[in-house]
């Protein structure tokens, strides 16, 4: 029985119905999808039924409605490779290399899959190793006996920025935008206003009196509004157009 005939027969069987539906975003790329198809159906990786696998692969692709263009590119390239291999398998005469040996058009794909599967497995193993900060932990503070003096930690701006970047990354785009959209100058002013209010209430005019220039003024007003919004301070205006008093919510003990 030739490959061609075998492939045709399988293609007509409509095998995919046996497969549970899968979503493309469960996969890490076209090779991952192919390995899933091959392994879940116990196909031989060295004798991949091209017609069947191509149909199945394309179905998974079609089921995905929206796709990142960059990612889509990788999947589409694989689709065309599969279709090309499928048609090469249908050629009546096998291809030969210079030495007259038969060339199996699927050899390259099989090698790629074997190589990828190795790393996929190693990645899994690596992930299962006890990892510092996830599974195993070390001591993070060092309070030794009183007669030992610990030198104070050193300041390192790069480390600080790196740490902040890590936080930004973790909280992700949208949350990040909500949380960190105020400029540093407003943040700084919020801190200053709060400090000045520590000793008790202040008139708005008093607070704004020292501000040099329009920009500083605007910044302070924004800072006050933000503090008010956060319910960190109270704003009192006893009569309309009367003077405005700012109070810390409660004077700190």
């Amino acid at each position, binding site marked *: 029985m030739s490959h061609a005939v075998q492939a045709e027969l399988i293609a007509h069987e409509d095998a995919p119905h046996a497969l549970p539906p899968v979503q493309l*975003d469960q996969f890490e790329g076209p090779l991952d999808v192919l390995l899933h198809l091959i392994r879940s159906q116990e196909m031989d990786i060295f004798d991949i039924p091209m017609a069947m696998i191509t149909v199945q692969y394309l179905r998974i692709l079609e089921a995905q409605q*929206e*796709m*990142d*263009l960059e990612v889509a590119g990788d999947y589409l390239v694989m689709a065309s490779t599969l279709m090309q291999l499928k048609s090469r398998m249908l050629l009546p005469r096998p291809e030969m290399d210079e030495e007259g040996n038969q060339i199996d058009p699927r050899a390259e794909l099989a090698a790629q899959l074997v190589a990828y599967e190795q790393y996929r497995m190693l990645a899994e193993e690596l992930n299962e190793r006890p990892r510092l900060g996830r599974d195993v*932990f*070390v*001591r*993070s*503070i060092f*309070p*030794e*006996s009183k*007669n*030992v*003096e*610990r*030198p*104070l*930690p*050193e*300041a*390192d*701006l790069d*480390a*600080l*920025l*790196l*740490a*902040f*970047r*890590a*936080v*930004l990354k*973790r909280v*992700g*785009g*949208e949350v*990040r935008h909500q*949380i*960190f959209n105020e*400029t*540093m*100058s407003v*943040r*700084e002013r*919020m*801190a200053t206003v*709060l*400090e000045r*209010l*520590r000793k008790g209430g202040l008139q708005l005019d008093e607070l704004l009196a020292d501000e040099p220039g329009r920009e500083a003024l605007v910044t302070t007003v924004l800072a006050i509004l933000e*503090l008010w919004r*956060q*319910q*960190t301070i109270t704003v009192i205006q006893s009569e309309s157009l009367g003077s405005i008093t700012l109070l*810390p*919510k*409660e004077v*700190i003990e």
Partner: protein
Amino acid sequence: MKPEHVQMLASQIEALMLASDEPLSLTRLRGLLDEELHSSDIRAALSELEALYRNRGIQLIQIAGGWQFRTAPEHADLIQQLWEIRPQRLSRSAMETLAIIAYRQPVTRAEIEALRGVKVSSQMIATLQERGWIKVLGRKEVPGRPHLFGTGKQFLVDFGLESLKDLPDSAQLMDEDEIQQMVMGSIQQHENEETEPGKENPDQDEIGNTYLNANKTASG
């Protein structure tokens, strides 16, 4: 309790003692360990550990209402030597806490915890305060009236900053891909707005939307 249970319990407590950055009290231990344990079981395991570490380089001592591992006092000189050679680096988690306080001040501990996704210990706050890098600015008027933290003068001095404005804008801290995504997003929005009335360039529009949607799905 059976001896092997005491041993298991001792093993758990030992791990907690190493990992914790605060002395652990009996109440805290009970909260973390199996709820059905009696205080007496925990006490039994603790005394076993105490005995185990007696006359060793490490000791389990009772301090501030809890237990904590400390090096044995006789090794003080050795520890002093260890620490003199290389000043302490602030731990990664302390750095993150400091960074959030710097960028997000005034901020409460609960807010820092929400951003970090991890508990922030009093010990860590104390270390940063001791260093003069952070200070209490006031209290937030929400239940519990938590402290609001901000950076202190020493922070600017030690990190070589004229003012907080010298901290890089948080947007500058994004990497290539993120910025590209943002730019793509805003270009797309712009194009949508421009083509809206006459729909002169519908094709581009569609592709753009697909891209945007896909991105949203991916990041969501």
